[in-house]
């Protein structure tokens, strides 16, 4: 059973969003997503300063098998991408909600409220429906 921490918000495409005290957000992929992908061997994160619209493909995670896009859960500007993942992509497998974060974002005004994010309970229902 995949881990779904209570303090995060989620998307149907298996990203998580952590609201930080300074008003920025941290974004990554869920435990379910990393498990479905398998051993990650390459992660491409966006450059600082890049402006994202909600739903835009903004990062790539590649396992041995395949490349998958990561979609921006909300609109905003990239503060920093997790540069450690270039050399240690497997961190996303071992700590998807912690050291395996992909990017930090300053949300566009009102974007966090406007984003179609799910509660942990609703995300668990999505996983149940997928048989995961």
């Amino acid at each position: 059973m995949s881990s779904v921490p209570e303090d995060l918000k989620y998307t149907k495409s298996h990203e998580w969003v952590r609201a930080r005290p300074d008003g920025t957000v941290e974004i990554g992929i869920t435990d379910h997503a990393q498990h479905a992908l398998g051993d990650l061997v390459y992660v491409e994160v966006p450059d600082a300063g890049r402006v994202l619209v909600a739903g835009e493909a903004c990062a790539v995670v590649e396992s041995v098998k395949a490349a998958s896009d990561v979609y921006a859960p909300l609109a905003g500007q990239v503060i920093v991408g997790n540069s450690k993942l270039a050399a240690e992509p497997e961190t996303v497998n071992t700590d998807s909600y912690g050291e395996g974060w992909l990017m930090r974002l300053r949300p566009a005004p009102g974007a966090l409220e406007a984003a179609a994010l799910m509660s942990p309970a609703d995300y668990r229902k999505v996983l149940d429906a997928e048989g995961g």
Partner: protein
Amino acid sequence: MRGDAVGRQTPLFKLHQELGARIVDFGGWDMPVQYGSQIGEHHAVRRAAGVFDVSHMCVVDLTGARVRAFLQHLLANDVAKLKVAGKALYSCMLNERGGVIDDLIVYYLSESWYRLVVNAGTRDKDLAWIRAHAAAFAVEVSERADLAMLAIQGPEAREKAAQLLNAADAAAALALESFVGRQLGSWFVARTGYTGEDGFEIMMPAQDAVSAWRSLNALGVASCGLGARDTLRLEAGMNLYGNDMDENTQPFESALGWTVALAPAARGFIGREALEGIVRSGSPAKLVGLLLEDRGVLRSHQKVLIPRLGEGEITSGSFSPTLERSIAFARVPCATGPKVQVDIRGKLLNARVVKPPFVRRGKSLVTDSEGTQR
């Protein structure tokens, strides 16, 4: 994770599920892609031993007084090279245009009995093609659906697999030379594989497969899925049918020229005229190995850009767990030099042209730009 469509299943399917395998469709078969970590399974084969279920592959027995003449007509390689009983030969089966219908292994068992192992995804068209041409030679074509096949591969594979046999059969199995098989009791044990490591492929009655697999696990042989099989064969420089060649590509542009026996000139195999035409005019393309020098992962269908010569295409690409960088096969113009670029999501990354295999018997064969072994 998957829909309701049920594919064909091997005698080991329930055991794969019990072992926690992730099951995927492969050529119409429900097959294990991995049990745990795909990279872990890959390393198990390079460093110790792993077992693969390859029962989805199609074993076909050919019998008849004129079976040798039939195979000399059917195959681009020449079974006349097979002089010792049990000896195997790798060959392409071509259409009249020289396109590859399938690649296969043929075993010489006796003057009137040969055995083919063909790919799972091409089974139906292969059997139809073989039967259509066998009639004129009065050769009987029998699919051996009663057999399961296990591939046990890795530096410790033969020694582990031999422990499944009685003492006399174990000694006989361990005495097999490379690319030779032998019937030992109800099992056909061959020193062949698709990983670049030593090992056996064992064809056995379907009802033996589960207990054999469990015994191998108990001996420390890792269960390995098709995911690891693909990265192992890519490192080993071995083609995958449907990716690296198909009916629209010929052997000379698929790094398979070495499997075409044009001598003796009198042997009129299917596709020969087309291949002779290509030899006269020169093949426009070739299949090469690529080593990605930048970070990223090469994948099939990515575009390869060659200075002044145009474009090529990756046919198979992945991350190499042994080299810890990305490798690929690519079909490129024949005059392609040592440096190319690959278009990955709009970025041009640098790759070096190398001659496969990348890895053999656990060792990297790739040199860095200064020519020293990595």
